[in-house]
Protein backbone atom coordinates (compact mmCIF):
# COMPACT_ATOMS: atom_id res chain seq x y z
CA UNK A 1 0.00 0.00 0.00
CA UNK A 2 1.45 3.37 -0.88
CA UNK A 3 1.77 6.20 1.59
CA UNK A 4 -1.10 8.34 0.27
CA UNK A 5 -3.48 5.42 0.60
CA UNK A 6 -2.27 4.67 4.13
CA UNK A 7 -2.77 8.30 5.10
CA UNK A 8 -6.31 8.28 3.73
CA UNK A 9 -7.08 5.06 5.60
CA UNK A 10 -5.78 6.60 8.81
CA UNK A 11 -7.94 9.69 8.43
CA UNK A 12 -11.00 7.56 7.67
CA UNK A 13 -10.30 5.41 10.69
CA UNK A 14 -9.79 8.36 13.00
CA UNK A 15 -12.97 9.96 11.68
CA UNK A 16 -14.93 6.79 12.41
CA UNK A 17 -13.75 6.83 16.01
CA UNK A 18 -15.18 10.32 16.39
CA UNK A 19 -18.41 9.33 14.69
CA UNK A 20 -18.81 6.35 17.02
CA UNK A 21 -18.22 8.57 20.04
CA UNK A 22 -15.15 6.58 21.05
CA UNK A 23 -13.00 9.71 20.97
CA UNK A 24 -13.97 13.35 21.32
CA UNK A 25 -12.48 16.75 20.61
CA UNK A 26 -10.10 16.53 23.56
CA UNK A 27 -8.14 13.83 21.70
CA UNK A 28 -7.73 16.22 18.78
CA UNK A 29 -6.44 18.90 21.15
CA UNK A 30 -3.78 16.46 22.35
CA UNK A 31 -2.77 15.61 18.79
CA UNK A 32 -2.28 19.29 18.12
CA UNK A 33 0.18 19.48 21.00
CA UNK A 34 2.37 16.95 19.23
CA UNK A 35 5.15 18.34 17.04
CA UNK A 36 8.78 17.73 16.07
CA UNK A 37 10.02 18.68 19.52
CA UNK A 38 7.43 16.35 21.03
CA UNK A 39 6.80 13.61 18.43
CA UNK A 40 5.56 10.90 20.79
CA UNK A 41 3.42 13.00 23.07
CA UNK A 42 0.08 11.38 22.28
CA UNK A 43 1.46 7.85 22.48
CA UNK A 44 3.08 8.69 25.83
CA UNK A 45 -0.06 10.16 27.34
CA UNK A 46 -2.18 7.27 26.07
CA UNK A 47 0.29 4.76 27.45
CA UNK A 48 0.10 6.47 30.88
CA UNK A 49 -3.68 6.39 30.56
CA UNK A 50 -3.68 2.63 29.84
CA UNK A 51 -1.47 1.84 32.85
CA UNK A 52 -3.45 4.13 35.13
CA UNK A 53 -6.82 2.75 33.95
CA UNK A 54 -5.77 -0.84 34.40
CA UNK A 55 -4.70 -0.07 37.94
CA UNK A 56 -8.04 1.62 38.65
CA UNK A 57 -10.07 -1.19 37.07
CA UNK A 58 -8.22 -3.71 39.24
CA UNK A 59 -8.87 -1.59 42.33
CA UNK A 60 -12.54 -1.33 41.39
CA UNK A 61 -12.88 -5.07 40.86
CA UNK A 62 -11.31 -5.68 44.26
CA UNK A 63 -13.40 -3.02 45.98
CA UNK A 64 -16.65 -4.43 44.62
CA UNK A 65 -15.63 -7.92 45.66
CA UNK A 66 -15.54 -7.10 49.36
CA UNK A 67 -18.19 -8.46 51.74
CA UNK A 68 -18.93 -4.89 52.79
CA UNK A 69 -18.52 -2.43 49.96
CA UNK A 70 -16.96 0.96 50.65
CA UNK A 71 -18.94 3.03 48.15
CA UNK A 72 -16.96 6.16 48.90
CA UNK A 73 -13.79 4.45 47.82
CA UNK A 74 -15.44 2.96 44.74
CA UNK A 75 -16.71 6.42 43.83
CA UNK A 76 -13.26 7.88 44.32
CA UNK A 77 -11.72 5.38 41.89
CA UNK A 78 -14.48 5.99 39.33
CA UNK A 79 -13.98 9.73 39.71
CA UNK A 80 -10.30 9.31 38.88
CA UNK A 81 -11.05 7.14 35.86
CA UNK A 82 -13.66 9.59 34.67
CA UNK A 83 -11.12 12.40 34.97
CA UNK A 84 -8.35 10.73 33.05
CA UNK A 85 -10.61 9.39 30.30
CA UNK A 86 -12.05 12.87 29.90
CA UNK A 87 -8.53 14.29 29.68
CA UNK A 88 -7.57 12.09 26.75
CA UNK A 89 -10.93 12.32 25.02
CA UNK A 90 -12.17 8.77 25.69
CA UNK A 91 -15.78 9.87 25.64
CA UNK A 92 -17.54 6.54 26.05
CA UNK A 93 -15.50 5.54 29.09
CA UNK A 94 -16.20 8.93 30.61
CA UNK A 95 -19.95 8.53 30.04
CA UNK A 96 -19.92 5.02 31.50
CA UNK A 97 -18.22 6.47 34.59
CA UNK A 98 -20.97 9.06 35.02
CA UNK A 99 -23.57 6.29 35.21
CA UNK A 100 -21.30 4.36 37.56
CA UNK A 101 -21.01 7.29 39.98
CA UNK A 102 -24.79 7.59 40.12
CA UNK A 103 -25.06 3.96 41.25
CA UNK A 104 -22.36 4.57 43.85
CA UNK A 105 -24.35 7.43 45.26
CA UNK A 106 -27.41 5.18 45.47
CA UNK A 107 -25.23 2.44 46.97
CA UNK A 108 -26.70 0.10 44.38
CA UNK A 109 -24.43 -2.95 44.23
CA UNK A 110 -25.95 -4.53 41.13
CA UNK A 111 -25.90 -1.25 39.29
CA UNK A 112 -22.24 -0.82 40.20
CA UNK A 113 -21.33 -4.34 39.07
CA UNK A 114 -23.07 -3.80 35.78
CA UNK A 115 -21.33 -0.47 35.30
CA UNK A 116 -17.96 -1.99 36.06
CA UNK A 117 -18.53 -4.49 33.25
CA UNK A 118 -19.58 -1.67 30.97
CA UNK A 119 -16.53 0.42 31.80
CA UNK A 120 -14.23 -2.56 31.25
CA UNK A 121 -15.80 -3.18 27.85
CA UNK A 122 -15.47 0.45 26.82
CA UNK A 123 -11.88 0.48 28.01
CA UNK A 124 -11.02 -2.61 25.93
CA UNK A 125 -12.65 -1.01 22.93
CA UNK A 126 -10.70 2.24 23.25
CA UNK A 127 -7.47 0.37 23.88
CA UNK A 128 -7.88 -1.74 20.75
CA UNK A 129 -8.89 1.20 18.60
CA UNK A 130 -6.02 3.39 19.77
CA UNK A 131 -3.50 0.60 19.37
CA UNK A 132 -4.73 0.13 15.81
CA UNK A 133 -4.46 3.87 15.24
CA UNK A 134 -0.88 3.98 16.48
CA UNK A 135 0.04 0.96 14.37
CA UNK A 136 -1.31 2.68 11.28
CA UNK A 137 0.69 5.81 12.15
CA UNK A 138 3.86 3.77 12.59
CA UNK A 139 3.37 2.11 9.21
CA UNK A 140 3.08 5.51 7.55
CA UNK A 141 6.22 6.81 9.25
CA UNK A 142 8.11 3.59 8.41
CA UNK A 143 7.16 4.06 4.77
CA UNK A 144 8.63 7.55 4.89
CA UNK A 145 5.35 9.44 5.13
CA UNK A 146 4.11 11.98 7.64
CA UNK A 147 1.06 11.64 9.83
CA UNK A 148 -1.80 13.70 8.44
CA UNK A 149 -3.53 16.12 10.79
CA UNK A 150 -7.20 15.57 11.38
CA UNK A 151 -9.24 18.68 10.66
CA UNK A 152 -12.62 18.60 12.26
CA UNK A 153 -14.83 21.37 13.44
CA UNK A 154 -16.55 19.87 16.43
Amino acid at each position, binding site marked *: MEVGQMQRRLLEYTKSLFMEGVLDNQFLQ*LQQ*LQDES*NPDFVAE*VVSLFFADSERLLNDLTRALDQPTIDFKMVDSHVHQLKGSS*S*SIGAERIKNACVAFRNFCEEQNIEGCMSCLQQVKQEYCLVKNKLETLFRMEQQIVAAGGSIPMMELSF
Partner: protein
Amino acid sequence: MDACGVASSSSSSSSSNPKPPHVLAVDDSIVDRKIVENLLKNSACKVTTAENGMRALEFLGLVDEQEQQNNLNSNGTKVNLVITDYCMPGMTGYELLKKIKESSVMKEVPVVVVSSENIPTRINECLEEGAQMFMLKPLKPSDVKKLTGHLIN
Protein backbone atom coordinates in the same frame (compact mmCIF):
# COMPACT_ATOMS: atom_id res chain seq x y z
CA MET B 1 -10.65 40.00 37.59
CA ASP B 2 -7.37 41.68 36.82
CA ALA B 3 -4.21 39.65 36.85
CA CYS B 4 -2.39 39.79 40.16
CA GLY B 5 1.07 41.30 40.15
CA VAL B 6 3.75 38.71 39.81
CA ALA B 7 6.10 38.19 42.77
CA SER B 8 9.37 39.94 42.10
CA SER B 9 12.12 37.68 40.91
CA SER B 10 15.09 37.13 43.17
CA SER B 11 17.57 37.60 40.34
CA SER B 12 17.83 40.63 38.10
CA SER B 13 16.87 39.89 34.52
CA SER B 14 17.61 42.28 31.70
CA SER B 15 14.56 43.36 29.77
CA SER B 16 16.03 42.14 26.50
CA ASN B 17 16.17 38.55 27.82
CA PRO B 18 13.02 37.82 29.74
CA LYS B 19 13.06 34.54 31.63
CA PRO B 20 10.30 32.11 30.70
CA PRO B 21 7.57 31.98 33.35
CA HIS B 22 7.99 29.19 35.84
CA VAL B 23 4.76 27.39 36.56
CA LEU B 24 4.12 24.87 39.30
CA ALA B 25 1.40 22.39 38.28
CA VAL B 26 -0.15 20.24 41.00
CA ASP B 27 -2.34 17.23 40.17
CA ASP B 28 -2.66 13.71 41.56
CA SER B 29 -3.47 12.29 38.13
CA ILE B 30 -0.40 11.19 36.21
CA VAL B 31 -2.26 11.60 32.91
CA ASP B 32 -3.25 15.18 33.73
CA ARG B 33 0.24 16.08 34.94
CA LYS B 34 1.68 14.94 31.63
CA ILE B 35 -0.89 16.89 29.68
CA VAL B 36 -0.62 20.12 31.66
CA GLU B 37 3.16 19.92 31.51
CA ASN B 38 3.02 19.83 27.72
CA LEU B 39 0.35 22.48 27.47
CA LEU B 40 2.59 24.78 29.51
CA LYS B 41 5.78 23.92 27.62
CA ASN B 42 3.91 24.70 24.41
CA SER B 43 3.21 28.12 25.89
CA ALA B 44 6.93 28.67 26.47
CA CYS B 45 6.86 28.09 30.21
CA LYS B 46 9.24 26.29 32.48
CA VAL B 47 7.25 23.65 34.36
CA THR B 48 7.58 21.85 37.65
CA THR B 49 4.92 19.27 38.50
CA ALA B 50 3.90 17.96 41.90
CA GLU B 51 1.62 15.03 42.60
CA ASN B 52 0.04 16.41 45.77
CA GLY B 53 -0.25 19.47 47.98
CA MET B 54 2.46 18.39 50.38
CA ARG B 55 5.03 17.97 47.62
CA ALA B 56 4.00 21.34 46.22
CA LEU B 57 4.56 23.01 49.59
CA GLU B 58 7.91 21.27 49.96
CA PHE B 59 9.00 22.56 46.56
CA LEU B 60 7.88 26.06 47.44
CA GLY B 61 9.65 25.94 50.78
CA LEU B 62 6.45 26.60 52.70
CA VAL B 63 6.47 23.56 54.92
CA ASP B 64 7.68 25.17 58.10
CA GLU B 65 7.88 28.65 59.50
CA GLN B 66 11.62 28.53 60.11
CA GLU B 67 12.36 27.60 56.50
CA GLN B 68 10.15 30.40 55.31
CA GLN B 69 11.75 32.98 57.53
CA ASN B 70 15.27 31.98 56.60
CA ASN B 71 14.21 31.78 52.95
CA LEU B 72 16.32 28.63 52.82
CA ASN B 73 14.43 27.30 49.85
CA SER B 74 13.98 30.08 47.36
CA ASN B 75 11.91 28.06 44.88
CA GLY B 76 8.88 29.96 46.04
CA THR B 77 10.29 33.22 44.75
CA LYS B 78 10.99 31.69 41.33
CA VAL B 79 7.46 30.47 40.66
CA ASN B 80 5.25 32.85 38.67
CA LEU B 81 2.03 30.84 38.64
CA VAL B 82 0.57 27.85 40.44
CA ILE B 83 -2.04 25.69 38.74
CA THR B 84 -3.64 23.17 41.04
CA ASP B 85 -6.31 20.51 40.73
CA TYR B 86 -9.07 20.85 43.30
CA CYS B 87 -9.76 17.16 44.09
CA MET B 88 -6.63 15.63 45.51
CA PRO B 89 -6.21 13.12 48.31
CA GLY B 90 -4.78 14.51 51.55
CA MET B 91 -4.69 18.22 50.84
CA THR B 92 -7.23 19.63 48.39
CA GLY B 93 -6.40 22.36 45.92
CA TYR B 94 -8.40 24.73 48.08
CA GLU B 95 -6.28 23.92 51.13
CA LEU B 96 -3.12 24.39 49.09
CA LEU B 97 -4.45 27.72 47.84
CA LYS B 98 -5.05 28.82 51.43
CA LYS B 99 -1.53 27.90 52.52
CA ILE B 100 -0.02 29.80 49.62
CA LYS B 101 -2.12 32.88 50.26
CA GLU B 102 -1.21 32.76 53.97
CA SER B 103 2.51 32.79 53.26
CA SER B 104 4.39 36.05 53.16
CA VAL B 105 6.67 34.83 50.36
CA MET B 106 4.04 33.47 48.01
CA LYS B 107 0.84 35.36 48.66
CA GLU B 108 1.17 37.58 45.59
CA VAL B 109 1.64 34.67 43.21
CA PRO B 110 -1.46 33.88 41.14
CA VAL B 111 -3.01 30.50 41.91
CA VAL B 112 -5.40 28.94 39.43
CA VAL B 113 -7.66 26.12 40.58
CA VAL B 114 -8.87 23.55 38.05
CA SER B 115 -11.56 20.95 38.46
CA SER B 116 -13.53 18.49 36.37
CA GLU B 117 -16.65 19.42 38.34
CA ASN B 118 -18.63 22.60 37.88
CA ILE B 119 -19.80 23.27 41.44
CA PRO B 120 -20.65 26.93 42.13
CA THR B 121 -20.03 26.77 45.90
CA ARG B 122 -16.62 25.27 45.22
CA ILE B 123 -15.83 27.95 42.67
CA ASN B 124 -16.89 30.76 45.00
CA GLU B 125 -14.95 29.31 47.89
CA CYS B 126 -11.76 29.32 45.81
CA LEU B 127 -12.26 32.78 44.39
CA GLU B 128 -12.98 34.16 47.85
CA GLU B 129 -9.77 32.62 49.12
CA GLY B 130 -7.89 34.55 46.47
CA ALA B 131 -7.68 32.21 43.49
CA GLN B 132 -6.84 34.09 40.31
CA MET B 133 -9.20 31.90 38.33
CA PHE B 134 -11.16 28.70 38.48
CA MET B 135 -11.10 26.63 35.31
CA LEU B 136 -12.83 23.48 34.20
CA LYS B 137 -10.94 20.41 33.12
CA PRO B 138 -9.92 19.18 30.68
CA LEU B 139 -7.76 22.17 29.91
CA LYS B 140 -7.29 23.16 26.29
CA PRO B 141 -4.33 24.95 24.73
CA SER B 142 -6.42 28.14 24.49
CA ASP B 143 -7.10 28.01 28.26
CA VAL B 144 -3.41 27.79 29.02
CA LYS B 145 -2.50 30.57 26.62
CA LYS B 146 -5.04 32.75 28.39
CA LEU B 147 -3.42 32.02 31.74
CA THR B 148 0.18 32.38 30.72
CA GLY B 149 -0.17 35.17 28.18
CA HIS B 150 -0.01 37.91 30.78
CA LEU B 151 2.99 36.32 32.46
CA ILE B 152 5.21 36.70 29.42
CA ASN B 153 6.67 40.21 29.22
